[in-house]
Each structure stands twice: as structure tokens, then as C-alpha cells.
């Protein structure tokens, strides 16, 4: 479904993503993990057209994506969430998602868009009452809203960027169940970026590990979690993360 070759992104002299190759099969959940700053979100930004790659190709359903605008990529069937939620605060929750339902799909009526929005909100477990303001949502709610917006565009491929960040343990398990459920119900393919490894490993079919913009491992969750290099690079930084989180 998606084949990425030699994908490279430089910010000035700094290489954020360096010649990364990978592919995703239809119906699969691919986990994308790595320490902070390893280039995960940058890969998403290239897949969704926010950044143009400096080099490499992105082939999605036999179409080249690099160079396309975000709205065209959305139209082709890739939905994304943002790591830091970006809700439209001047619209209600339902309107946020209905907007995605309307503009993310071609030739839909207003009422169709609204029913897409209700479905998507139901899937992520948010209320679909028409008058609820964004301000009523907490961190977990905003993450869910990001997912609902992406789902309302009816994607074939969903790019979920750290949908667990800022959630507590039970919320995390719920969210992981939700992603599994989304795949089951909608039959869509998912790339899931996360650096909370435990939860992710339970859900994904395959994992790819990034470090400093390079792919350092790829395979089944079991295989990757025993990989020496991954333990060295990732657990080290993970330990730091945990320490940081504990301080807060």
C-alpha cells in the first residue's frame, strides 16, 4: 500500500530523516518508535505533505506523493493526527469533525458530513452533541478529537502521531484498544508513532525503530524488543524520559 524509498529531510545543515526505506501492507498496524527528536513526526510531515522531502520517493497506492499539497494527499486517502493537537477552537467539537468529513471527502452533502462526524466521534468515544465547545476537552479528549478529525476524512491509511502522549495508564490502554478497534471496524491501515513502547507493542503487527533519523531496526514486536541496538539506544533514552516524567 505504501512504499517509501530513500526518504531524506534536512533542516538547514541538520539531517532530521536520513535515507529511510520502509513499506506498509494493507490492513497492517505499523509501529514507528524512537527517542525524542529521532525524526518520527518529520516522516509523518513528509507523508502528509507538510514538508517536501529533500530526497526519496513516497509511493501510495501506486501514486507518487512527494511534491503534493496536504489537501491533495488527504483526498488520496491519508489521514493524520498532529502530535500536539491542533483543534479549531472557534468551532464546536462536532463542527471540527464535520469540517473534516466535508472537505476530506469528495462530493459529500452537508448532512453526510455531519453523519460521518457522528460516526467518527462515536468510534473514538467523544460525545457528538452539537454544542460542546473545544474548551471542555482535556488532554485525552484533544487526542481523541485529532483521531476523529482524521477518521472523518475516511482515510485508507491513518497516521497517528503519539496518540497516547499525556494520557494516564488506563487511558492509554483504552486508546490502544481504540486503535485496534478502528482497524477492525474500518479495515484501515495504520502507522502509529509512539514512544511509550509497552502499550504499542501489544497492538502493532510490526515495529520500525528510528534513531537520529536513521532506521536501526524493523520486525515483529518480539524481535525488535530483543534487539541489542534498540535496547542500547532506546531504553537508555527511555529511562531518561521516565526520569523526566517522574520529576513533573
Amino acid at each position: 500500500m505504501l512504499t517509501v524509498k530513500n526518504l531524506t529531510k534536512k533542516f538547514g545543515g541538520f539531517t532530521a530523516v536520513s535515507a529511510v526505506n520502509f513499506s506498509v501492507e494493507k490492513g497492517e498496524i505499523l509501529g514507528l518508535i524512537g527517542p525524542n527528536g529521532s525524526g518520527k513526526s518529520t516522516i509523518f510531515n513528509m507523508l502528509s505533505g507538510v514538508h517536501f522531502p529533500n530526497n526519496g520517493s513516497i509511493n501510495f497506492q501506486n501514486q507518487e506523493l512527494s511534491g503534493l499539497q496536504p489537501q491533495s494527499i488527504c483526498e488520496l486517502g491519508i489521514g493524520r493526527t498532529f502530535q500536539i493537537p491542533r483543534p479549531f477552537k472557534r468551532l464546536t467539537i462536532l463542527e471540527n469533525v464535520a469540517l473534516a468529513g466535508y472537505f476530506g471527502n469528495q462530493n459529500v452533502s452537508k448532512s453526510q458530513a455531519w453523519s460521518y462526524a457522528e460516526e467518527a466521534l462515536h468510534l473514538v468515544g467523544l460525545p457528538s452533541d452539537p454544542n460542546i465547545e473545544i474548551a471542555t476537552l482535556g488532554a485525552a479528549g484533544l487526542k481523541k478529537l485529532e483521531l476523529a478529525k482524521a477518521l472523518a476524512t475516511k482515510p485508507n491509511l491513518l497516521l497517528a502521531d503519539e496518540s497516547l502522549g499525556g494520557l494516564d495508564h488506563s487511558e492509554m490502554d483504552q486508546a490502544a484498544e481504540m486503535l485496534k478497534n478502528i482497524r477492525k471496524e474500518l479495515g484501515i491501515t495504520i502507522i502509529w508513532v509512539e514512544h511509550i513502547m509497552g502499550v504499542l507493542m501489544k497492538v502493532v503487527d510490526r515495529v520500525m525503530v528510528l534513531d537520529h533519523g536513521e532506521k536501526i531496526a524493523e520486525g515483529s514486536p518480539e524481535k525488535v524488543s530483543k534487539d541489542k541496538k534498540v535496547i542500547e539506544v532506546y531504553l537508555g533514552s527511555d529511562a531518561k524520559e521516565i526520569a523526566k516524567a517522574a520529576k513533573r
Partner: protein
Amino acid sequence: MNNNYIIGLLTLILLSLPFIGVTGYPLHIVITILIWSFAYTGWSIMGRFGLVSLGHGAFMAMGGYITALLWNYYGLTPWIGIPIALILTAFLAIIVGYPCFKFRIIGHYFALVTLALSEVVRQVIIATRDYTGGSLGYTPEPHGEGGWSIYALQFPDDRTAFLFIAVFIWIIGILIWKYIDNSMSRYALEAISEDEDASAAVGVKVTREKLKITVISALITAFAGALYCQYQMFISPDTIGGVGISLQIVFAVVVGGIYSALGPTVGAIITLLLAEILRISIGTARVCVTDDFCLNASGFPLFIYGIMLIVFIIFLPKGIVGSLMDFFKNNSSKKIKTEN
């Protein structure tokens, strides 16, 4: 709903004015207010989404001047001249808007680019003074003997005819405002005004939506310019163009209310009446501080405008209509709460 009743009632009252004895100067003021309301409504259609254009004076001047020039030089009736003026205005709006939106010139930068547009169009009018009369102004030639003519869209000495035209276009303006308010484009533009990237990520064609609203807005304003010209039978770069008019438009809408259909109309009523009152009461009087130090008071209205603008932006950012609506909404929701 309630809003529609107000508009319907207003229309009836306006249309009956000439028959209940409102003629002459008062009727002139009403017509002027309606034409400007139409222009202001046009501006607010995009202004409400944070697309603050200081270039609408340019669009208004395009509407007026092109229509008048085509009439004077080619005898082209305004019925064809106005559509041509509108097409050319749409071109100008696209030529300026497209690069702005493509290269993400937003906020203050957008205001500055459009400000320059106002001045450029004014300078073009002045530079081509051999044809346009420059800063001295321009007059569409009276048709035939100078009487009533539908063909020439000239109704000298018949304010009633023009009142009907003005009421008609004023309502059209309000209806367009409401149509957009109910459309999906409104949601898209609200989203765009907050976050262009996030809007594009859910499939919104950002550049296209912004361009669409800009063209609609420019067309309404140009149309207002053309009607102003047909009504006054005189235009000059300073009465329907330039930075001054662009700022006047923004000011009136901010005062009236940018987020409500009747806001621009209320803004027009208040600012134009204020300007008339100040002009009549102060006019060209001179204020003498000492015997030989006198100030020309003609700048005084502008001074009051400036103060009002500051006061409104700080204390009533939603304008008079928006604030009143909030006030009533809060009161009625309080009522519901106590009833429960």
C-alpha cells in the same frame, strides 16, 4: 429567524420612506447609508475571517471608475459596464490574492499588501488624469437631455428610484452574508483563520477558499462603487478610493460588528451620521488657541473617529451589534437556568 424579521421590517420601513414624507436631504442620507452598508457588508464577508483587507478602496474605485469611463468614452450602458467592471475587479482581486494566499502572507502582512493596493489604484487614477480627471474627480456624462434613464442608470432628482435600487442591493448584500454564514465555506474559513496547516490536513483547499471569499468580497465592494457613482454622478479618488476609504470601511465594520449580518449596516448608520453631524456642526470652523494661533477644525472628525476606533477595539471587539447580541443571549440563557 428573529434577525430575518428585523431585516424584513427594516425593508418595509425603508421602502415606505418617500411616501411618508421623507424626501430631500434625509432621503439622501438614507440612500448613502444603504450604499455604504452594502460596501461594508462586502468587506466584512472576508474581514470576519481575519482577512483584514485595507485594499477595498481599490475595488470600490475600480467599480466606479470603470463603469463611468466605459459610459463616457464608449457610450456603454452601465448594464454592461458594471459587469465588465466587476470582471476586471475579480481579476485584480485574484492577481493580488493568489500570491498572498499561496505564499501565506497573512495577518499584518496581508493588511500591508492590500494597503499598497489601495494606494496603487489611487495613483493610477491620478496619473491618468487626462482620462480620469485625476484628483479633481470625474463625472459620468448625463444621458441625452439629462433626464431619468434606465438605460443610463441615471435618475437625477429622483431619489425614490435610487432608494429602491439601494434597498434592493443592500438586501442582496445581507443575503450573501447569510448564505456564506450557513455554508461549509464558513467553517473552512474559520478553521483557516486559526490554523492553515491543520485545515489543509483535513482536506480544506486553503488557497482556493481564501480566494473565493476575497473575490466575492471585492465584487460586492466594486458594485457598491459603481452604484455610488451612478447615484452621486461624481467620483474622486478620495471619495470612493484610496487608503482613506479603505480605512473608513474597516472602521465602520469594527464599530458595527464584524460577526453579525447587520453589523456593517449599523456601523454605516453610526459613522455616516456622526460624520454628517460633525461636518455640519463644526464644518470648516477654526479653533483659535491664541489670537494668532488658529487650527483648522476640519481634522476634528478624523480625530474623533480615531478615538472611537481605539475605544471600540479595546472595549467592544464584537462591535455594537455583536455586543448587544451577546448581552441578550446571556440574559436569555440565565433565564433558562433559573427556570430549571
